[in-house]
């Protein structure tokens, strides 16, 4: 199935979790937040939340700004 992670389309295995999607970008689990289809997925739910085809995953962190 295809999911979009930070704007890029990725071919991934069915049933990939949010935690696995985050690990494609970073090993970090702190200072990072995830939204799937514009809804926040709390860190405690990353391992148990499975992605579905066409999901849009946004992985954000703090950068210089403001």
């Amino acid at each position: 199935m295809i999911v979009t992670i930070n704007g890029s389309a990725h071919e991934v295995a069915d049933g990939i979790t949010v935690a696995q999607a985050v690990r494609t970008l970073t090993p970090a689990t702190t200072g990072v937040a995830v939204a799937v289809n514009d809804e926040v997925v709390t860190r405690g739910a990353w391992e148990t939340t499975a992605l579905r085809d066409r999901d849009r995953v946004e992985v954000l962190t703090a950068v210089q700004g403001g």
Partner: protein
Amino acid sequence: MDDLIIAGEKFSSRLIMGTGGAPSLEVLDQALAASGTELTTVAMRRLDPAARGSVLDVLRRRDIKVLPNTAGCFTAGEAVLTARLAREALGTDWVKLEVIADERTLLPDPIETFDAAERLVADGFVVLPYIGDDPALARRLEQAGCAAVMPLGAPIGSGLGIRNPHNIELIVEAASVPVILDAGIGTASDAALAMELGCDAVLLATAVTRAQRPDLMAAAMKEAVRAGRLARQAGRIPRRRYAEASSPMTP
């Protein structure tokens, strides 16, 4: 002591820094140290796997409280989602609410800002909204439960100073939450003026981070904010049309 108190939290520095525009994290670190700031904004962006070092590490080492902003949002919906992501990533329910109307002026959109503020207050956030120098909107946002109001002096990054000091005074007069002058500061005298007008704090970034010597300008801003605060508390003399001798005129 003359602490700044926002939502019950005390700060001994009335200079709030931004982190945007610094050429490197090392330069930023030196500027933050020289500024004496205890509260500093960061933006939320897509994680870049190639990025080295983190602004969060710099703030943590300096024991500076992080204030995430919603910079880059054009709608209330985007701002609410960004604030929730920041709360999740950074473990703080404080947010500098910034909803801009267009990229050319970066002026805040009052309608979207107010909508987002109401939703974020209802969601338990400590909301610090960035707004135009509009006394009516400032009052409405305070009534909506915002923890402070942050009127601009001039557009973000413009360095034009405080274009409408009268409106800033009107906002200060009516507010019972802290008023933080945000955006437009170009140099130290602008920051001092903001405090002389009665603002409780100043938030700036570009004036320091893009100065030729950021650490030196940060130190200047620290002194200017303190001087302006003292002058406000001291109470300035009235302006007069003609001279008034300070020495006796008779021999």
